[in-house]
């Protein structure tokens, strides 16, 4: 998977950090096969660590099968794969844990994950 690319700085992620300047959290993305711990400080991704983990510590977790994440990460995702709430609606993505950081910065997280799509994607704000 390509979640480690969240560490790569670019103009999209720079502008996103301004939407989350008070956000400090660690969350986990699970593809069932693999797990990724992602640390954010002041809206900037500071670390992405790939599992397996023995005792991972995180605030919330997003779990979806690998193929679902791959569909989400397409340049132009198909309907139902274009948004994490759309995936929730189809019961292919599960939100777990303390969802406060996620829901209070919902657009930030949506756009942060969408920033992993191939360049040229229009999901920028």
């Amino acid at each position, binding site marked *: 998977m390509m979640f480690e690319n969240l560490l790569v700085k670019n103009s999209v992620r720079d502008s996103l950090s301004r939407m989350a300047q008070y956000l400090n959290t660690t969350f986990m993305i699970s593809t069932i096969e693999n797990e990724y711990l992602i640390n954010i400080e002041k809206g900037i991704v500071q670390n992405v660590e790939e599992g397996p983990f023995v005792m991972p510590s995180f605030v919330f977790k997003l779990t979806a099968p690998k193929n679902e994440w791959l569909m989400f990460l397409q340049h132009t995702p198909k309907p*139902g794969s*274009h948004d994490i709430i759309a995936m929730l609606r189809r019961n292919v993505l599960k939100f777990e844990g303390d969802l406060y950081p996620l829901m209070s910065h919902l657009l930030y997280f949506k756009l942060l994950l969408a920033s992993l799509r191939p360049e040229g994607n*229009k*999901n920028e704000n």
Partner: protein
Amino acid sequence: MKIEKEPISGQYGKFKIDGLDYRIYWEEAGQGVPLLCLHTAGSDGRQYRALLNDKKILERFRVIVFDMPWHGKSSPPENAKIQNYKLSTDFYISQIMSFIDGLELIKPVVMGCSIGGRIILHLAINFPEKFRALIGLQSAGHLDPYYDISWLHRQDVHGGEVCGGIAYGLMAPTSPESHKFETMWHYMQGGPGIFKGDLFFYKFDGNIGNEIKKIDNSKCPIYLLTGEYDYSATPEETKSLANTIGIEMTKMKNVGHFPMSENPKEFLKYLHPVLNKIS
């Protein structure tokens, strides 16, 4: 400096709705058959800005859009206090019928999106003879909750930010970013708890079961159009609704839950043929 003026005029009026006075704002343009447009939950009439500027439509239709009470530039009722706002089916119907009555509209076409796409089904069940036609955008007979809507109104979460985040995802990745931003911005400007209160109608009070079978398309033609990227009212759900009524539905490519606002150019390609049939 020369400015580009739009053909839209806006007005305020006092309407009596269920015994209370409401100061309602509406916009209109064009002349001909009244076409009353209903905005989505938690937003306002600006969603129909493209229709109100479409020369082809304005030649034959008087396009009218009002902001629901508590939304946009319409006020809460007189002597309102902070309350647990919840939109009921009865109150939604009352405000639409009061508005039609107040403007003395004769057999208007009513087009609604999302909650508006739901309420036109209630209008079709209860007052089919009062309308020339009904157009449902993103219509479904019912919707079960699929996320915890309490997040939309918590004092420790910025309501505008979370409502905007929810609305953003309901749009198609293929819609123009400028229109998506404006659509999201309307949500970010909503009053505290209003989007959530509208969803009480959409996900609970306004759900329709077997009553859908009471809709008689011969009494009032119904047109259903749904964007392919909508996961709230999916094309499959609109198709199921259309099958029950015994009519066709149109699946709109490259748009999501807010076709008229997120991608007006694409939406108008689908709407023009429908309006041609009606007029």
